[in-house]
């Protein structure tokens, strides 16, 4: 296979994911509505309750809605990653996954292509959210819209890879509700998305500890710092490391000779 053939394959995977996204307009709307509800309603209610002191990367006191914006951006990417996981389970049940896995390209490349496609979709959603947030007077520095892009890409890859890993564990579409309860909600709430960690520490050192080891906290912080033209090395290291671990896990899980698929059969295959 030539390099051009690899490019054609990647383009095809991204194209198909984009087309699917266009076909599911309600997916785009619901991906935006969720964080906007938090921004317009939750933040309005809590701005008087939760005071935010000056913490990096902010150089002054900020409104609560400004604080939660990076968390809500990461939330968009978290839901998108899980949505990708859901669509992989659906593809497996409908048999489409076989078409992908029958390709003569290396399986790591095919899965990476799926990840790239899902990440690009989530980045689009994030920028759409930032546009609406700007209309709501949440205005990061202009350059921040550019510097946050690499953070979006890396966080999108990490959460997409996590979703892919989870999709290999889910046997049937009906089991997906468990992902909501055991992955999405704990990850989101036990993080710095909605409240600064010093606040959490005051309430419970244990929850603070959990928040600190939660990769999603570092995803939020990576986005938060990048949006204000700053680099958070710890957040980057954790997100980058977790991306590699989740990707490797997904690769092993989808390897017919080693992974979980091998232990219980192939994707959607009849016995």
């Amino acid at each position, binding site marked *: *296979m*030539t390099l*051009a*053939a*690899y490019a*054609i*394959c990647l*383009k*095809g*995977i991204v*194209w*198909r994911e984009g*087309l*699917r996204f266009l*076909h599911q307009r309600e997916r785009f709307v619901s991906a935006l509505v969720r964080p906007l509800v938090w921004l317009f309603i939750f933040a309005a209610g809590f701005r008087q309750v939760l005071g935010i002191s000056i913490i990096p990367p902010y150089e002054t006191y900020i409104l609560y809605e400004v604080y939660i914006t990076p968390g809500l951006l990461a939330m968009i990417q978290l839901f998108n990653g899980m949505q990708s996981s859901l669509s992989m389970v659906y593809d497996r049940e*409908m*048999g*489409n996954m*076989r*078409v*992908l*896995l*029958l*390709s*003569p*390209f*290396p399986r790591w490349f*095919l899965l990476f292509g799926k990840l790239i496609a899902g990440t690009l979709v989530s980045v689009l959603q994030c920028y759409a959210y930032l546009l609406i947030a700007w209309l709501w007077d949440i205005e990061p520095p202009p350059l921040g819209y550019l510097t946050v892009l690499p953070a979006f890409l890396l966080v999108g890859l990490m959460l997409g890879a996590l979703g892919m890993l989870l999709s290999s564990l889910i046997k049937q579409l009906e089991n997906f509700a468990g992902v909501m309860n055991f992955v999405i909600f704990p990850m989101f709430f036990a993080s710095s998305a909605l409240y600064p960690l010093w606040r959490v520490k005051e309430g419970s050192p244990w929850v603070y500890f959990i928040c600190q080891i939660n990769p999603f906290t570092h995803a939020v912080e990576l986005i938060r710092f990048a949006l204000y033209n700053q680099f958070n090395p710890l957040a980057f290291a954790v997100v980058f490391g977790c991306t590699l671990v989740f990707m490797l896990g997904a690769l092993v899980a989808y390897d*017919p*000779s*080693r992974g979980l698929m*091998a232990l219980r*059969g*192939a*994707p*959607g*295959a*009849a*016995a």
Partner: protein
Amino acid sequence: MTAPALEARNVSHSYGARKALDDVSFSVARGAFCVLLGLNGAGKSTLFSLVTRLFALRRGSLAVMGCDLQREPRKALAQLGVVFQSRTLDLDLTVAQNFYYHAALHGIGKAQANARTQDLLAAVQLADRAGDKVRNLSGGQMRRVEIARALLHRPRLLVLDEPTVGLDIGARADILKLVRGLIASEGMSVLWATHLTDEVFETDDVIVLHKGFVRANGSVRSLLEQTGATDIKDAFVRLIGEGAP
């Protein structure tokens, strides 16, 4: 010596304690139309999952056009066209979009894919449906699209797992005629899995699979001689009835 289109050697596969395939060996000659005949639960779909590398091969070996599936999986898959028993088309895409996606997964560019798509859809008499969403096609039409799509990357071996399941008599006959015609024009080998003896022609090779064992393997004539039967249906019944494990 030229390697066969498909060669299975001592292939076994189990689901936990239940053995689905037990020491299965056979070969499909190049240019042959080979029917894999077996009742439901004989192990046909398991064999297909191994040949297509959806299941990991743990015991034995499989080779497509001389390329070992374990050692050279990409080379082997590139020469393989597959039609699964269950539908694998994306219902929300058009017929042409499904072809384009399949072409991309094989590294075939858009221009080449478009030309090939037109030819293949014309061959399966669906040239006028290229822009239609797959979900608007009938079961028989979807099957024809899947067969045409499997030929898009010019495979040397086409494997079809019960492709006529769920189709009416007319559509079944059409599909069978279509595949035999395409094979003649494309010059490839075929492994056609079915439980229906009326899909076997006199000129075909036949592998009889029963409860995970190969009960017989050869031409229709040799099976008739071996069993003393007068037709393939009778031969099949005798093979799976006598001394079946």
